[in-house]
């Protein structure tokens, strides 16, 4: 599983301030830190409080690329901002995200085809997040069929089954795991899967252990990527261990270290 480092996000105060003051330093520090900690992608999100999302996204992409060479994951519901970001990305990037709603899929998949970008697709439609695995998988199938119709390789599509905080949506847990497993049967090659890891622990007091355990369980169901805290060393070690147990990486005594430094 690949970590999409979550830290360059305007929801965090230091990043919001950096965007306001056009100070690249905090952004670049987090870019380097996450890369060294083992992130495979860097999530880029301008946050809720920005007035001009288009120029903020463009600036974030540019300054991040000066500090790190790993690919970016442009995270916004404002597709103009994403498109502006894609235009300045040096390497193919990932779009985060699109729900299974026709006009949005049209916009995002067209953009993805143009920029050779990967896409995170959300297993939700007009009616929001479904309750059970079956409905989630049906929406995933919509994403797969559309992705294919726009000529995008299916393995460039990451489907997010959408996890809810376990303190309020406990019943969703098993449905998420089941969805992850079934998504792998939708096509050959199958789409990849991604998840916003820390959603699961929102509002709880034991956030770290919940995140780590959830990561391990998801990997066992075939999860390929997660937006997560790359600087949580225990989380990275958990992921490295789960990968070895799933026979995804070749074991050696220092496997956790090898996983962490694989991009350096």
């Amino acid at each position: 599983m690949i970590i999409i480092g979550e830290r360059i996000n305007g929801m965090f105060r230091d990043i919001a301030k950096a965007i306001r003051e056009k100070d690249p330093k905090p952004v670049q520090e987090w870019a380097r830190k996450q890369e060294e900690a083992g992130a495979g992608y860097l999530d880029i999100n301008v946050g809720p409080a920005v007035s001009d999302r288009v120029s903020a996204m463009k600036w974030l992409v540019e300054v991040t690329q000066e500090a790190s060479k790993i690919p970016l994951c442009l995270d916004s519901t404002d597709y103009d901002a994403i498109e502006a970001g894609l235009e300045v990305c040096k390497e193919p990037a990932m779009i985060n995200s699109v729900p299974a709603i026709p006009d949005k899929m049209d916009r995002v998949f067209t953009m993805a085809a143009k920029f050779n970008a990967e896409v995170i697709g959300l297993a939700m439609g007009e009616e929001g997040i479904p309750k059970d695995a079956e409905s989630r998988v049906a929406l995933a199938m919509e994403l797969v069929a559309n992705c294919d119709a726009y000529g995008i390789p299916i393995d460039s599509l990451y489907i997010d089954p959408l996890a809810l905080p376990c303190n309020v949506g406990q019943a969703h847990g098993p449905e998420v795991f089941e969805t992850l497993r079934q998504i792998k049967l939708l096509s050959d090659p199958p789409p990849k899967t991604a998840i916003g890891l820390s959603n699961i622990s929102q509002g709880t007091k034991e956030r770290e252990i919940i995140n780590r355990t959830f990561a391990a369980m998801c990997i066992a169901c075939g999860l390929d990527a997660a937006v997560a805290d790359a600087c949580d060393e225990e989380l990275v070690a958990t992921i490295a261990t789960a990968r070895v147990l799933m026979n995804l990486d070749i074991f050696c005594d220092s496997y956790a270290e090898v996983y962490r430094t694989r991009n350096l």
Partner: protein
Amino acid sequence: MAVDILKEKYRGQVREVVLGATKDEGGTRSHTIKVGGEKALPFLHFEGEIPNRPVVAMEIWDMVPDEWPESLKEYFKDVYNDPGAWAKKCVDEYGADMVAVRFKSADPDLNDTSADECAATLKKVLEAVSVPLIVYGCGKAEKDNTIMGPIGEAGAGENLLLGVAEQENYKSVASAAMANKHSVIAQSPIDINIAKQLNILIAEMSTPLLDRIVIDPTIAALGYGIEYCYSIMERARFGALQGDKMLAMPMIGNICHEVWSKKEAYLPADEEPGWGDQAERSPAWEAVTAMALLQGGINLLIMRHPEAVKMVKNNIDDLMKDNSY
């Protein structure tokens, strides 16, 4: 239907290791040899660049190879008293890309040759040939730990390929390599996990060594478990292409001892009439062992029989022809 050619998308590639050093680089070799660097599975030129052809080295000893079968010794009888002349014959007459010197006589149960004498022998070989060299001790760790330092010093700056670092005993060889700018053979006992870990241990001693390690996965001969090595090599190669940098070192197959201790290689025809003529069978056994390893992804072979070397080099010529669509 028209066929769309399938190319795998790989993230990684095999590391490229340079062996030997020219005058400009602090050595005396006429040229260096690069191994590894490929971005594709063995000889699949259509899916990625394969910048360097596999290399064939020939083994020489620092003593008369009594245990070799007569039919093999025949090729070297005029030179096996003199390692320099032996090395030269391998390069000039038999087309060896490199020479591997085994300090067999250092074995305490044989001549127990001293470190100084080994160093002197190395110098002679360095003078006799201009190709990059591979160096092996006698195979007994206690003794080898005492000779590899002085041998490394005698070849300082030549970027020798020093054998062998093992999990339980890697420091002396790795230190000899660090001190005098040599490369290292990291040998693991038909075990991919140890192969990977050993690279990490060596790199912990000195990060720059990462690009000077060649993996020896330990070779079993044809008919005697070669499929285990073949699969380990395939896994390591595929792993490297998928981005596993700690298994991405080029690989070496020292097939000499394994092949030549097998009946199929050394038995005369009158003892096994059903196996055919020995003069053909012996080199064929060695060459087919090498052929299989090449298909598994080996980058560097050490061999003994001149006819087998010829067969393998011809095979490599054929396989290095571009097969892009």
